[in-house]
């Protein structure tokens, strides 16, 4: 019993110390666990460097691209089932039904999902998980959390993760060695898809941890709040609606076709309202100094 209370006290002491040191290094209120997160980020980065990234590079360079596309499409199709459920849970009927259509078309007309015929048929891919659904329902993201091997997350999304995992059809595949091979292939395919992007992060960031965190939190926000961003003209702009016009190589007149047609949209493009509201005062504050120095060429 005495040992127990001693351990307990020691535990409290350590927790307090961790909190204090955490506060000392943390500048971002969304990241109270920065000390732990940085350590885990470093670990993940190391694993990526020595194992995942080299393997994904081989995957990308060795496998014919149609095989890679097939693998990506196959697992993408399985993922679309859960995306459909989440879109419906979020009340986005149009997107949800489009996803149901995607799975149906790709499974039966696309050789079990290997060929993404639905995208060509005008049903674009969406990506929704249970964390986004909770966010839509009003659950706040909570602190930023770096998960072992899985990387950036938030407390809310970590809580939602077991639901996502149990909703992944592939985890029920038997025998286990096929299941594990599939999980490995999917991980490689996903890593291979962001090889260029990860090099760019490497180049662009001063502090990779902060860069990834701050970009991730914004992106997550923008995925959940697909509602509008206010233009300074006063008009509400909803990035998820409106026609997309393809810019051709030959210069032509910019059309101003304002017909709303959201069915052929990928519904993920949105700017974070938080980022916007946060950026605005800073703009105003710097506008006065900005003006005086604007005549100066860089």
């Amino acid at each position, binding site marked *: 019993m005495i040992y127990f209370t001693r351990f307990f006290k020691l535990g409290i002491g350590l927790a307090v110390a961790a909190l204090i040191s955490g506060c000392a290094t943390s500048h971002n209120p969304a990241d109270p666990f920065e000390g732990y997160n940085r350590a885990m980020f470093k670990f993940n980065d190391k694993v990526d460097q020595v194992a995942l990234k080299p393997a994904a590079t081989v995957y990308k360079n060795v496998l014919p691209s149609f095989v890679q596309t097939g693998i990506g499409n196959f697992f993408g199709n399985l993922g679309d089932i859960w995306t459909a459920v989440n879109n419906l849970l979020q009340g986005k009927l149009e997107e949800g039904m489009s996803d149901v259509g995607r799975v149906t078309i790709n499974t039966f007309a696309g050789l079990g999902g290997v060929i993404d015929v639905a995208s060509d048929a005008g049903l674009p891919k969406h990506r929704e998980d249970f964390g986004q659904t909770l966010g839509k329902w009003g659950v706040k993201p909570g602190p930023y959390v770096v998960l072992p091997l899985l990387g950036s997350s938030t407390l809310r999304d970590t809580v939602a993760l077991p639901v996502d995992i149990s909703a992944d059809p592939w985890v029920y595949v038997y025998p286990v060695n096929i299941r594990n091979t599939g999980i490995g292939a999917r991980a490689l395919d996903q890593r291979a898809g962001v090889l260029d992007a990860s090099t760019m992060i490497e180049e662009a960031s001063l502090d990779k941890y902060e860069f990834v965190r*701050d970009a991730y939190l*914004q992106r997550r926000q923008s995925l959940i709040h697909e509602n509008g961003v206010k233009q300074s003209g*006063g008009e509400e702009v909803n990035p998820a609606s409106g026609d997309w016009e393809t810019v051709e190589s030959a210069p032509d007149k910019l059309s101003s076709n*304002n017909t709303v047609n959201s069915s052929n949209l990928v519904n993920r493009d949105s700017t*974070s309202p938080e980022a916007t509201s*946060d950026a605005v005062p800073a703009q105003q504050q710097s506008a006065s100094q*900005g003006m005086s120095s604007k005549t100066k060429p860089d």
Partner: protein
Amino acid sequence: MNILKKILAVAIAFGALSFAASASAAIEPPDALIKRISQEVLDSAKSDTGIQKGNRNRIRALVEAKIIPYVDFQRMTALAAGRYWRTATPEQQQRLSKEFRDLLIHTYSGALTEIRDQKLQMRPLRATPSATEVIVYTRVIQPGREPIELNYRLEKLEDGWKIYDVNVLGAWLVETYKGTFASEISKSGIDGLIKTLADKNRKLASGPVNSRK
């Protein structure tokens, strides 16, 4: 004398007219501007094998001609530095803007070498004509992949619209650098941040433009 006066008046009137005409023609609408420079950059990058192979001079020339004139790096840097910007001397502000600009140009140059069969789509701008700040929404379509959202914040200055923030896949550039800038500055001051950026730029400059290949 009278005739001379008349000629002079007519000349001045014409001068004023043509000046007014050129001034209004110079202000290109923000969406047209984004469309034009995107198009020019895409076309150049697709047709120029030197750029695709990572020829530093060719990339630099393209960026300097097509991009830099339309970006307000000073404001971009001021926003990223946030409240610290006011504490910097004009000289520090200038050096910070320069280093930040070089870092962004390097990153952008790497992306340029990736352009092959991408296509650009944009949404028609719906802002009032009196607006001085707008967001232009575009996305890059690449075969077999999800589109990449690419949005621009622009401000209207006397010499035209200027880009001062870019959003890639939902994350604003300024916002993403803000945290890093703040912690660098609070750790080692404005000069420390300038030095970190300069070191980073030197390291990047010694490597290939595109370290991906």
